[in-house]
C-alpha cells in the first residue's frame, strides 16, 4: 500500500502542475494503462478509482458527546408529533417561535421530542424540566448531582440545573438561597449575575436589603436597575426625589366616590409631545412610593381606584406599580384590575409580571371575557406559563371572540393582515384554553364557515388531542 501511496503522491504532484508523470513504479498499473495515446487518460481513470476505493479519510480526534439524557416528562404520542412539527413550521414562518408550544406541552406534562425541537443553552425561558437538555447543549457534565446545592458545591452543578435548584431553594429556604447568591453572584459575568439576582424576586423581603445594597453600584446598568426596583418594593428609595417632584405636576390626584374618600389619579394629555415623552420617561424611573411622597399621600393612596387615562399612559403607570410598588400596593391595584372590566388587558398583563400562577389564572379568566383583540395576545401574556387550562367562561361574550368568528366566516376573502389576525387568534386560543373550551371554539368556527380541515385549527386540535400526562 505504501508503494501505491507513493505513486499516487507523484502523480498528484505531476498533474497538479502539468509536469510529465515519468515512469510508473507499479508494474500492474503499467500493464493496465498501456502505452501511447490514451495511456494517460486510462491512468487518470485508474488513479481516480484507487483514490475512491483504497483510501479513506483520516479522522482527527473525535469524542462523541454524551447521549442526550431522558427528561422527567414523556414526549408526546407519535400520532400527535406530526401536528406538532407542522405547528413548529408554521410558528417559524409567522415569527411567533416555539415558546408558546413548548410551554403548552409542559403545562400538559410533556416534553418536546428532541428530533422536533431542542432548547439552546441560553434559552432562559424554557421550563425547568428541560434543564438536563440545556446542560447537554452547553456541553456541561451530565452526571447526577447528588450533593446539596451550597456556595461550596455551586461550581459542581450544571448551570440550568443549578438555576432550577436555586429557585426551588429560594421558595423553601429563602435565607439559604440568599446566602448562595451573596457568595457567588459577584464572581459571575453580568448576564448570569443578573439571572441570579432575579431569583431574589421570589419571596423578596427586608432580609434581602443588605445583598441588594451590595449590588447597588454594580458595573452593569441592568443590574443597577434591577436592584433599584427591588429596593423600591421594599420601601428603600434609591431614586432622586427631584424627579418625583418633576413628575407630580404632570399627574392629577383627585377624590372620587359619594363621600369623596377615595383618591384617583388622572393622566391628562400634556401640551406638547416632548412633555408627554418626559412624563413617560419619569414614570419609568420614579417609584410609586416616591410619586406618592411628592403628591403628599401614602403609596396605597395612588392605587385606590383605576386611574382615568385620557393620555393613554396607563401602561407606564402599571409598569411603575408592577416594578416598584410594595406588595400591599401591588396587590390592591391587581385586585382592582381583576374586578374592573374597563382595565385593558395590556395593563393586566403588566401587573401579572409579579403574580403567582394562581393569580395569573384568575386574571386570565377575567381578561378572556373582556378581550377586545381577536389576536388574544393580551390574554396569552397574562397566562404566562399557565397554558391549556382556561375554561373559556364568558369568552363568547368578548368583542375579540366575536371579531375572530367574523374573520373565520370570511377566511378565504380577507386581507393579509386579517388572515394573520385570524391565524394568531386561533393559535393563541389553542394555547390558552382547556380541551372542552377548545372543542367549543372549533365548533363555533365551523359553524361560522371555516373548514374543519383548515390548518388554522391545528393548535386547537392539538389541544383537544393532547391528554394531560399528569394533573396540571
Amino acid at each position, binding site marked *: 500500500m505504501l508503494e501505491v501511496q507513493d505513486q499516487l503522491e507523484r502523480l498528484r504532484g505531476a498533474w*497538479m502542475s*502539468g509536469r510529465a508523470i515519468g515512469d510508473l513504479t507499479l508494474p500492474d498499473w503499467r500493464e493496465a494503462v498501456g502505452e501511447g495515446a490514451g495511456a494517460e487518460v486510462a491512468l487518470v481513470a485508474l488513479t481516480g478509482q484507487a483514490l475512491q*476505493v483504497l483510501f479513506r*479519510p483520516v479522522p482527527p480526534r473525535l469524542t462523541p458527546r454524551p*447521549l442526550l439524557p431522558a427528561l422527567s416528562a414523556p414526549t408526546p404520542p407519535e400520532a400527535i408529533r406530526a401536528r406538532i412539527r407542522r405547528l413548529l413550521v408554521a410558528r417559524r414562518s409567522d415569527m411567533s417561535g416555539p415558546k408558546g408550544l413548548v410551554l403548552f406541552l409542559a403545562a400538559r406534562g410533556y416534553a418536546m421530542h428532541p428530533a422536533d425541537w431542542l432548547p439552546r443553552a441560553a434559552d432562559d425561558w424554557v421550563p425547568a424540566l428541560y434543564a438536563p437538555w440545556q446542560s447537554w447543549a452547553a456541553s456541561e457534565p451530565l452526571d447526577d448531582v447528588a450533593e446539596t446545592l451550597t456556595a461550596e458545591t455551586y461550581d459542581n452543578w450544571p448551570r440550568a440545573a443549578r438555576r432550577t435548584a436555586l429557585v426551588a431553594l429560594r421558595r423553601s429556604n429563602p435565607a439559604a438561597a440568599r446566602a448562595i447568591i451573596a457568595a457567588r453572584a459577584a464572581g459571575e459575568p453580568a448576564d448570569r449575575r443578573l439571572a441570579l439576582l432575579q431569583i431574589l424576586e421570589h419571596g423578596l423581603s427586608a432580609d434581602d436589603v443588605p445583598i441588594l445594597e451590595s449590588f447597588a453600584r454594580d458595573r452593569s446598568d441592568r443590574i443597577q436597575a434591577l436592584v433599584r426596583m427591588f429596593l423600591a418594593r421594599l420601601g428603600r428609595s434609591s431614586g432622586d426625589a427631584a424627579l418625583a417632584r418633576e413628575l407630580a405636576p404632570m399627574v392629577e390626584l383627585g377624590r372620587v366616590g359619594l363621600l369623596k374618600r377615595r383618591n384617583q389619579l388622572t393622566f391628562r394629555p400634556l401640551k406638547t409631545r416632548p412633555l408627554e415623552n418626559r412624563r413617560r420617561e419619569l414614570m419609568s424611573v420614579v417609584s410609586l412610593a416616591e410619586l406618592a411622597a411628592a403628591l403628599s399621600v401614602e403609596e396605597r393612596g395612588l392605587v385606590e381606584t383605576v386611574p382615568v387615562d385620557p393620555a393613554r399612559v396607563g401602561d407606564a403607570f402599571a409598569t411603575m406599580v408592577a416594578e416598584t410598588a410594595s406588595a400591599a400596593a401591588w396587590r390592591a391595584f391587581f385586585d382592582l384590575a381583576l374586578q374592573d372590566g374597563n382595565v385593558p388587558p395590556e395593563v393586566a398583563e403588566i401587573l401579572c409580571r409579579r403574580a403567582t400562577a394562581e393569580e395569573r389564572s384568575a386574571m386570565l379568566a377575567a381578561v378572556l371575557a373582556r378581550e377586545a383583540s381577536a389576536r388574544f395576545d393580551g390574554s396569552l401574556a397574562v397566562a404566562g406559563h399557565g397554558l391549556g387550562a382556561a375554561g373559556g367562561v364568558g369568552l363568547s361574550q368578548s368583542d375579540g371572540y366575536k371579531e375572530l368568528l367574523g374573520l373565520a366566516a370570511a377566511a378565504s376573502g380577507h386581507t393579509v393582515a386579517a388572515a394573520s389576525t385570524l391565524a394568531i387568534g386561533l393559535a393563541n386560543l389553542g394555547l390558552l384554553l382547556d380541551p372542552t373550551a377548545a372543542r367549543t371554539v372549533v365548533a363555533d368556527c365551523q359553524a361560522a364557515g371555516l373548514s374543519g380541515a383548515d390548518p388554522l385549527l391545528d393548535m386547537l386540535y392539538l389541544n383537544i388531542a393532547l391528554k394531560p400526562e399528569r394533573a396540571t
Partner: protein
Amino acid sequence: MTLSHSEIEAMAPDQSALKAAAALLKPAKWSSRGASGGLIWAECQGSGANPYRVAADTVDIGSKCSCPSRKFPCKHAIALMWLHVDEPGDFTPSEIPDWVGEWLGRRRKSSSGGGGAAANTTAGQKSLAAATAEAPVSPVDPAAEEKRRAAAGKRAADLRHQVATSLDDLEVWISDQLRTGLGGFLAEMPDRCRRFAARLVDAKAGALASRLDEAPSRVLRLPDEERIDAAIVELGKLALLARAWRAAPDDPELHREVIATETRDDLIADHDALRHSAVWEVLGEQIVTRRDGLVSVSTWLLNTGVEGPRFAVLVDYFPASAGRRSGAFAAGACFWGELLFYPARVPLRAIIAQRSDADVRADAPWPQPAPTDPLAAYGEALLAAPWLLAAPIALPSGRIAADPSGRPWWLDGTVALPVEGAVPDIALGARLDTAAGLWNGARLTLLAARTNWGRVGFDA
C-alpha cells in the same frame, strides 16, 4: 356549490385537458384517496417517477397538483374531482395529510377571493362525453411504417457517430487538462467544464454533458486540500464512462449515462427489467438545482424487513422556473410497492410499477447491514460500475461526533466517515442504531437513521 360533471366541464381549461383526465380515471393509477370536509386528495401515478399529489376543494373547486403542468387545473386535478363525482365512496374519510394542510395554508395567504377555477366560461365547447369517446384507430400503412423504421435507424446511426466523435474529443480534452495542470483547471473549472459540456450537448451526449456541467459544484465545495483528488476522480470517471460506452454503445445503462434516460413507457415495456416488491421506507429527498436550470428531485427508498438492505431512488426533473414543488412522499412514510428498476449493473433508479394503499407498519425494522466493513457494498458497486458518483450504504450502530472544527463525522468502533453538511442537534446526542446514507468516497450524505430517540431524518 356541489361538485358535478357540469362543474368539471366548466373548470377544465380545454377539451384536451378533459380528454387527458379521462385517461386517468382508472383506479389503478390512484392511491391514498382521502376526504375530509369538502377536501379530497389522492396520489396519481403520472409520467414521473414520483407520484403526483393532487388535492381539491369540492366547495370552491380550488385544486393543487405537484405535477409540472402549466395548465390549471391540470388533468390530474380534473381527474381527481371527476373520480369523486363518479365514486365518492372510494375516498376514505381521514385526517388531512400534512401536504394538504400546507396547501390550504398557502392558498389562503395568496388568495384574494373564492376559487378561480370555476370562472372558466367556455363550458359549452367542452364535453365529458367527447372526452371519454374512443378515438378512431387508423389502419397501419406497411410502407409508411417501413419508411419510419428506416429513418429511425438512420437517426440512431447518426447519433452514435456524433456521440463517438464527441467522446474522442472528451479524451483529448481530459489529456489537455492534465497536460496544462490541474491547478489551472481547478481555478477555471466552471468555465472549462461548461464550455465542453456545451459541445457534448451539441453532439447529443446530453446526460454526460449534465454530469460534466455539475462536476465543478461537486469538486469546489470541498476544502482546497481535497480538490485535486476530487478532480482526478471526476476526470477519471468521465474517461471510464467514455470508454465503456465505446465498448458497448447499446448497453442501456451506458446509454442512460451518456445520452439520455429511456422513457417510462420504454422501461415498462422492458420485460427483463428488474422488479422488486417490498415495503419501502422513504429515507429522504435530495433536491438539487442544476446549472442547466433543472431541479432534480431524488427520493431515496430502503426496503424494510429482513431481506436486503436494498435501496432505490425515484428521480424526477422539473424546471427551476416552476418554483418549489412539494415532495411526493413524506420522509419516514412507508408503503408497499413493486418497483421497476432501470437496467443497471447496480440497479438503483426505479419507478413505481404498483403501489398498495394497505396499511403498513411505519416503524418496521430496517434490514441489518452485513456485519462486515460498512463500505464493502460501496466497493462492490464501484467494481461493477466504476462511473458511479456515489452509492447508498447501510451503516451499523454508531454515533456522530464533531471534530475540533465542528465538522460532523459518523463513527463506530473501527470506521469514521466525514459527514456532508450540518446534522440536526439531536444526531449529536443520539445513538444511531442503524443509518443510511450516500458515500461518494469523500463524504457521507446521511439520509435517515433509527436511533434511541426514534427515526431521525437528515434531509431537512
